[in-house]
């Protein structure tokens, strides 16, 4: 029988750089900031106390290795592993780091992630290769999700206005977050009148490629108490599911649900002992790479029934002062999506929320929440649940 991770791993330190365009820093500079901030919060000495480190980064696609963090930190002689799992890379780094701590192989570890797209020759929204085969279409990332919106419009009567409401809500939240890339409130008209990116998604339905780094320090609760007293959160569950990277070719694909999210949510909820997430959890941070993704994720994370996602945004349920706030930090809409950093930042945000440290965007009395990453063409999902200890 597999064992649960629940309450076996504590998050004792978080570090998040400002997200945005970092013309004057390279990826290493950002890692140095995020990791050192996390160590400071955890009251540890990076070199003396850290046993191992996981670093997630997507670009340059391959060949980055553990050097992505070991070199800039000059953290040599320790096990450092690079993790890449598309847009779920960051949370997968945390997941792997957590297992090492739970297995008692290491006492104190760091999971961090970084992305530096300006240095890649890339620009603007992500242009990705889907199928890795020369005769199959390659397409932009928004075109992974836009066909799902078309189906939702047809099946459930959702509208572009419903999608726009997601962007408006997240921008309202993110405007208050000091580390966010975009800190401007917008209106529904802003979204609807923006340039079309992949019909029916406009510029404001899409998150931007951004730059930044995030880090968390993990240890076991008994060590956590010694280092930070009661100022730590615990991991309740972490799950990952990989589905086909060719969803559109899969017989029976509906476009109305993301199988990877459903599977990862089931697994993480089970590990955390959660049967009714809407009641037992207080908030969530979802992978709003596109507005349609956030609405679909409400359903796939079992916050509502299929088809009811748009009703949640219309009724204000997921507003920061609603019954179940989603993306109180402003989400990917305001942070952009530095792929390797995103998932790590989400775990850091969950930790800050449950410790009452989410300045500007604190969810009232947040005790436990989930974070969700979704990578590729809805193909790879990670779900992490973090709460107050016990």
């Amino acid at each position, binding site marked *: 029988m597999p064992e649960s991770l629940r309450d076996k791993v504590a998050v004792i330190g978080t570090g998040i750089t400002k997200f945005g365009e970092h013309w004057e820093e390279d990826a290493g500079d950002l890692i140095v900031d995020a990791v050192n901030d996390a160590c400071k919060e955890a009251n540890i000495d990076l070199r003396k106390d850290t046993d191992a480190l996981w670093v997630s980064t997507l670009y340059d696609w391959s060949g980055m290795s553990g050097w992505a963090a070991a070199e800039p930190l000059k953290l040599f002689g320790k096990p450092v592993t690079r993790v890449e799992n598309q847009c779920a890379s960051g949370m997968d780094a945390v997941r792997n780091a957590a297992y090492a701590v739970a297995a008692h192989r290491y006492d104190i570890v760091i999971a961090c992630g970084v992305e530096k797209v300006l240095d890649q020759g890339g620009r603007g929204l992500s242009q990705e290769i889907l199928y890795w085969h020369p005769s199959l279409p390659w397409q932009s990332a928004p*075109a992974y999700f836009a066909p799902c919106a078309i*189906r939702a419009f047809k099946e459930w009567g959702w509208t572009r206005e419903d999608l726009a409401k997601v962007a408006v809500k997240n921008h309202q939240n993110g405007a208050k977050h000091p580390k966010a890339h975009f800190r401007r409130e917008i209106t529904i008209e802003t979204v609807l009148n923006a340039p079309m990116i992949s019909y029916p998604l406009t510029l404001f339905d899409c998150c931007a490629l951004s730059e930044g780094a995030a880090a968390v320090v993990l240890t076991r609760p008994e060590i956590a108490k010694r280092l930070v007293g009661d100022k730590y959160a615990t991991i309740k569950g972490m799950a990952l599911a990989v589905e086909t990277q060719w969803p559109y070719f899969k017989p029976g694909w509906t476009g109305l649900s993301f199988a990877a999210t459903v599977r990862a949510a089931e697994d993480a909820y089970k590990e955390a002992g959660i049967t009714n997430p809407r009641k037992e959890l207080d908030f969530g941070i979802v992978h709003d790479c596109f507005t349609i993704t956030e609405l679909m994720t409400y359903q796939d994370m079992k916050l509502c029934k299929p088809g009811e996602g748009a009703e949640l945004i219309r009724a204000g349920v997921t507003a920061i002062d609603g019954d179940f706030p989603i993306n109180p930090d402003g989400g990917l809409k305001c942070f952009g999506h530095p792929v390797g950093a995103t998932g790590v930042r989400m775990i850091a945000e969950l930790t800050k929320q449950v410790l009452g440290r989410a300045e500007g965007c604190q969810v009232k009395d947040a005790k436990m929440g989930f974070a969700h990453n979704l990578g590729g063409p809805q193909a790879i999902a990670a779900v992490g649940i973090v709460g107050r200890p016990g």
Partner: protein
Amino acid sequence: MAGILSYGAYIPMWRMSRDEIAKSIGSASLGGERAVVSWDEDSLTMGVEAGLDCLTGFQPKEIDGLYFATVSSPFKEKQSASLVASILDLRKDIFTFDFTGSLRAGTLAVKSASDAIKAGTMKKVLVIAADARKAQPRSDAEQTFGDGAVALLLGEGKDPIAEIEDFSTIIDPIPGPWRREEDLYPKVFDGRLDTRYGLLKDIPQAVGNLLKKHSIQAKDISKFAFYGPDARSHTAIAAPLKIDAKSQMQDLLFKSVGVTGTAHCLLLLVAAMEQAKANERIVCASYGEGSDALLIKATDKVEQAKGKHKGTKYIASKKMISSYGRFLAIKKEIDVGWPEWEKSSVVKYWRDESWLLPLYGMKCNKCGALQYPVRRVCTNCGEKDNNVKVKLARKGKVFTFTHDYLLGPGNFTGDGINPTSRVLIDLEDGCRIWMEMTDHEIEEVNIGTSVELTFRLLHQKSDFLFYGWRARPVRQSI
């Protein structure tokens, strides 16, 4: 005697108004419009379309040879015929050959195929002629050229729709048109010289010899399907042969298509056969450093072919190119940043050619799921190495779609104006396939839209051309 067992044709969707060209460059309009290949088409892809049209109702595996004629081959060194044969799903032990170098290449291919059939070395030969010739912007050719393809299935078969009774040929080392290895565009020293001392001498001579040999009067021929570089020269061929230009000359299709190079006189032959009655005779003649003439006699089976093929009905199915600028872009005369896919791999393309080109999916022997692309393990049930390749339907309906303004070939990456429409199609056989659309306007794409698959150039990389399938709205008027 060899006969024509079937015919087919292909005219691309796009038309350019000659008035619009003339207005844009300040020259005189020759009137009407010309057919224009889409950015993702060339002589090879058009040839595939014409071949598919021609083979409707025939088994591709029964074909013993494929002759491909063009003066606008996508590769200067690399055979088109063998690639077209693979796409059309012909056998691998067949004889393939590219006929090129002269506008007579199409009729020469027909002659060679016919001879092989007569000699008994092959039973059925598919002859395809296709051209998308590049014309120098602002030249006359920009207006006179048209893009199109034609296919004839020749065979010894018992029931040809027409008999190829005889050939005659004349060679004539007239200067033009010519195109050197390093030239993009064909050149003519002086079109008037070519017409007066070439065209108007060679076609009448080749045709005259043929008629004389068979003791046939021009008035006994129902249609003359003659090549012509332009409408006026074409009409002038009638006089020396004592042909009634009005009733006997097969319309040049100049106002609607333009002159389609090696394909053209054969395209007119198809147009004539579409109207021919049993026992009527057609004379087809090409021109290019001489002339080849074919004497053709329709049989009573000619009626059976009518309506079976799209043929020249493609002409009525069209969309206008909105501006001269877009015309230059679609013909790749201006660099609009045609995308290259950095991850593309010639090796992968080669490895999967057997199902990519003729478009096969796979059916799992365990769960029965029909799927694409072909892989070792079933995406539905996980069964390993237990499946059969199945030829996929090439028609279906759109399940969902998007218009990708950010990335895609066919438009100008990231310009925010011309999106690539991507469609998820339920093919008629139940297979799901995700494709790019082509030949469409955004408004035409909706859930439930009927589409058909079309063979196109997908992209270029490493100076190699990657071909495959796209979807287009079902061509109307067909």
